[in-house]
């Protein structure tokens, strides 16, 4: 897979970089002034790979960073990598047609992150599928919830009715008691009046009793019905209730998982930030315990999730009228609990495993130090200078931490000596072949222990590095920066080659060879060219010596929206939009290729047409002098077709607009196609803006009809059944001489465009119409 473009949101000064294509030839340079945001781009890309960001990269408004990278991908690989589950419909087709896949890393408030499939079309396909799935789940929940509601209501009604019955029974008991008491009292009084009143009360009480007894009888019947319904619903919707419980279990599992993850991540950060191994050992047991808790939480989540899905589906089917046994049979065959489809995150994570490794090479950590504590190397202490270079050294040596801790010092010394020799031989070869240097350089490192003069570190091991030549042995920092840089870079390349598993590599290099002298910086470019077939290089620079004037298309220019304001947003310009970048941003290019040519009269800011040679210039400028085009056009002849691309790069560098006119011959088509790929990168609109090919006209001479060509150019009566240009080539005519003579003759004879025959006029007008469509 190859990184082809990136987009960065909310990373230091970058709010939205927009999509930026990398150079197709694997070397991309980022130019710009200090503090313009060059390093931020490299760091953001590195963060995309590592997933780690520090709080200081967050913007003031605390908007969270998002970094997307698009990769060229073989559809076959995508199919192989994403074969464990199914992909939403259309995804593979989209990969096949575009042959690219974008991944997006999104950070959350706790600065944890996740990788998702990105890209507008692809995301839409996943989102559509996830939406459909989510809607289906909602449908299931809605149905099951409705059943549960019905059952709950029935149970509630039954409970209320039972309550009423009980109250009625109580009322009846009370009435009976009151009647009994009243009868008893009436017997005691025996008076006529008292009897009358008592009889009246008794009569009312008996009446009430009869009424309540009647009500109770009705209520009992009603209660029977309610009970029956509640029991039936409870029995039928037992599975729905079970589903509800499973959902509650799942919610709990998710809560536990999330809280455990946060705890674990926080502790891991603390653990990583601990400088010394000995201190780390203190934290390790707690970390292990938390890890174990997290694994258990994860297992519980998986179980709860599966249980919830099965029960939800069963409950739905039962609610739809199926028997539980039939539902169980159907769910078993459908296997809804098996998560069949990749989510954006799952697919993104799977693809991420196969993207090239991103490695950040920056001077502070990657240049070989004079000495470094072994503890810092093993603990990958980023705050220590040269840590990465020293780690690379150890990686190459194959020495493991245990070897240093427990190994025999004699064996260690022997191994170190052997390693010193082998690295020296390899580096010498690289130094001579790639950098073209002949001086012999040897490298060595030794392991020492701090003496009593360093009481706080006394007895601790440290590594010391040396670079030797014929005359003396010096610390790396005492050597020229060139030697130190190339040696360190060499270590990085070798270490990367060791860890590479065929995935490729994106080497991010911040200000390579900063403060190297000009020649050494040019050597850096040579090394990039040497490695570009094996890895992609993205480097930042403001040195003109780290720019190839023939390959301006490799550049991205970076500047602040308001140039003098460090707090303003970073903007990125690609080779096609360099004209919009400021002169200060483009200053390395101007330094490299001269003054700003757009100031003079020969070439204008717009409507320049680059021609492949002087002959084309003679013919076209002569014909153009005979007709009046509605738009201004400025013809720029290249000295030879092979120099067209240089001219293109010069104009790009100067920020001048241009059109490239190439012949329909093999070389012209080759240049045309190169520019299509490198300058326009397959963008049809840009191709139409920048490039015109003469198509069936192999060279400019072919715009003349054979008759006009013989009459006005060749001045010979000879049969030319082939094209004019092939005739000239086969018969070894000087094109430039003929073209120059033609120009003089047209001027001397006051020729007019109408003097040419229809075929010639049609052919030239075909070309001019094409030009006019593009010219401003």
């Amino acid at each position, binding site marked *: 897979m190859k990184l082809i473009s990136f987009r960065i949101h909310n990373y230091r000064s970058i709010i939205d970089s927009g999509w930026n294509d990398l150079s197709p030839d694997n070397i991309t340079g980022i130019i710009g002034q200090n503090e313009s945001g060059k390093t931020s781009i490299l760091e953001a890309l590195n963060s995309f790979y590592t997933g780690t960001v520090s709080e200081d990269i967050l913007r003031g408004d605390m908007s969270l960073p998002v970094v997307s990278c698009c990769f060229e991908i073989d559809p076959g690989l995508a199919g192989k990598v994403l074969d464990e589950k199914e992909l939403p419909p259309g995804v593979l087709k989209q990969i096949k047609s575009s042959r690219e896949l974008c991944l997006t890393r999104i950070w959350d408030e706790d600065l944890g992150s996740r990788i998702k499939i990105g890209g507008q079309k692809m995301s839409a396909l996943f989102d559509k599928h996830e939406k459909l799935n989510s809607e289906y789940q909602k449908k299931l929940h809605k149905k099951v919830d409705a059943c549960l509601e019905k059952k709950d209501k029935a149970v509630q009604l039954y409970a209320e009715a039972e309550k009423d019955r009980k109250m009625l029974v109580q009322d009846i008991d009370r009435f009976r008691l009151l009647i009994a008491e009243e009868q008893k009292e009436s017997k005691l009084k025996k008076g006529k009046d008292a009897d009358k009143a008592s009889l009246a009360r008794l009569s009312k009480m008996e009446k009430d009793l009869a009424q309540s007894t009647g009500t109770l009888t009705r209520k009992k019947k009603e209660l029977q019905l309610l009970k029956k319904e509640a029991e039936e619903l409870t029995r039928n919707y037992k599975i729905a209730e079970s589903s509800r419980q499973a959902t509650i279990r799942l919610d709990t599992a998710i809560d536990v998982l999330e809280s455990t993850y946060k705890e674990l991540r926080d502790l891991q950060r603390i653990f990583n930030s601990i400088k010394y191994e000995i201190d780390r050992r203190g934290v390790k047991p707690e970390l292990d315990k938390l890890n174990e808790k997290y694994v258990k939480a994860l297992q519980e989540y998986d179980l709860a999730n599966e249980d919830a899905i099965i029960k939800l589906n069963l409950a739905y089917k039962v609610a739809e009228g199926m028997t539980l046994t039939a539902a169980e049979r159907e769910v078993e065959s459908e296997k809804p609990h098996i998560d069949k489809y990749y989510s954006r995150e799952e697919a993104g994570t799977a693809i991420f495993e196969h993207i090239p490794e991103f490695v950040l090479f920056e001077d502070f950590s990657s240049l070989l130090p004079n000495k470094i504590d072994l503890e810092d190397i093993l603990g990958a202490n980023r705050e220590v200078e040269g840590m990465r270079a020293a780690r690379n050294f150890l990686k190459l040596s194959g020495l493991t931490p245990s070897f240093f801790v427990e190994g025999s010092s004699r064996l260690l010394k022997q191994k170190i000596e052997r390693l010193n020799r082998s690295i020296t031989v390899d580096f010498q070869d690289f130094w001579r072949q790639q950098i073209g240097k002949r001086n012999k350089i040897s490298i060595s490192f030794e392991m020492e222990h701090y003496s009593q003069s360093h009481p706080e570190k006394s007895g601790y091991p440290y590594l010391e590095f040396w670079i030797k030549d014929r005359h003396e042995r010096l610390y790396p920092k005492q050597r020229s920066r060139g030697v130190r840089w190339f040696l360190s870079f060499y270590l990085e390349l070798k270490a990367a080659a060791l860890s590479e598993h065929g995935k490729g590599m994106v080497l991010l290099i911040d200000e390579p060879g900063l403060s190297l002298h000009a020649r050494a910086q040019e050597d850096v470019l040579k090394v990039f060219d040497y490695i570009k077939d094996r890895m992609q290089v993205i480097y930042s620079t403001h040195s003109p010596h780290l720019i190839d004037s023939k390959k301006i298309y490799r550049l991205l220019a970076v500047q602040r929206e308001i140039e003098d304001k460090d707090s303003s947003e970073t903007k990125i310009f690609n080779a096609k939009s360099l004209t919009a970048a400021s002169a200060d941003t483009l200053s390395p290019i101007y330094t490299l290729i001269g003054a700003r040519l757009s100031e003079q009269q020969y070439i204008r800011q717009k409507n320049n047409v680059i021609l492949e040679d002087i002959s084309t210039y003679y013919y076209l400028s002569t014909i153009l002098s005979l007709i009046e085009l509605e738009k201004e056009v400025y013809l720029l002849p290249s000295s030879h077709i092979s120099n067209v691309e240089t001219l293109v790069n010069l104009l790009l560098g100067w920020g001048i607009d241009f059109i490239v006119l190439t012949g329909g011959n093999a070389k012209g088509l080759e240049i045309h196609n190169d520019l299509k790929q490198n300058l326009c990168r397959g963008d049809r609109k840009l191709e139409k803006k920048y490039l015109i090919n003469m198509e069936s006209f192999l060279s400019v001479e072919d715009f003349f009809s*054979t*008759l006009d060509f*013989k009459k006005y150019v060749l001045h*010979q*009566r*000879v*049969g030319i*059944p082939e094209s004019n240009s092939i005739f000239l080539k086969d018969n070894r005519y000087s094109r430039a001489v003929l073209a120059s003579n033609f120009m003089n003759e047209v001027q001397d004879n006051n020729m007019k465009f109408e003097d040419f*025959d229809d075929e010639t006029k049609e052919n030239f007008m075909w070309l001019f119409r094409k030009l006019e469509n593009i010219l401003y």
Partner: protein
Amino acid sequence: MRGYYDFEQMNNIENNTGSVADAMEELERHKKEVTDSIEYAFLIQAALLPPNQQLERYLDEHFVLYLPRDIVSGDFYWLYPMDQWIYIAVADCTGHGVPGALMSILGISFLNEIMSKREFIKPNRILNLMREKVMKALHQTGARNESQDGMDIGLIALNRSTNELQYAGANNFLHYIRKGEIKQMKGDRMPIGISGIEEVSFSNHLITMHKGDIVYLFSDGFADQFGGKKGKKYKYRQFQSLLHSNSKRPMREQKELLLNEFLNWKGSYDQVDDILVMGLKI
């Protein structure tokens, strides 16, 4: 007619036998060999001309009167269908017999080669290209004492959907009958090949044909034929009247009428040139 005769062999025959009768016999044998060879060449040339089935397939009512003076001919006709277009050429190469036939084969090959791109080319551009090819093949540069061979040709491109007809001619006229009137369209007065004047582009003529119009293309053989009571040339004007007077007859009958007229006119005179007349009813 130029041919290849082995005079040395003939002398040897005479010297060796000393007998005139033997020599005559040998000559007869030799003549037969040459004739057989030319007759075989005729088969090859005939195979290069459009077969009748092709003419029937692409043309409506039509006729072709093709009368080589010798066994093989310097005249040829050619047909090339392309999408809605049908190209038809009638050509008269310099000379007749074997040299004319060789030129005709060159002409047919060049026409096919030009059309091989399978894209529409205006008839005049085809003639321009033909001329370049002939000049190159015969190394013609306008220098003295070089071959002046070439061909005259009438070439039409007829659009079968719209009846649009484009015509270009090299020393050749196109005639057509419309509503009982005969009309002509002049080609350019220059051949396919080098000539005394510097090459200029052939002209392209455009006309929309109507249903029932008849188009005639022909070489100069008929009009140049000596005969009649006074042994004079038939002449172009008389040939034009003949076409006109026959034009109401069916095309097949027109061919017979032309043939009869030719034989009547020629009488006992020798045929002076190859004859080719092509008629096509729209």
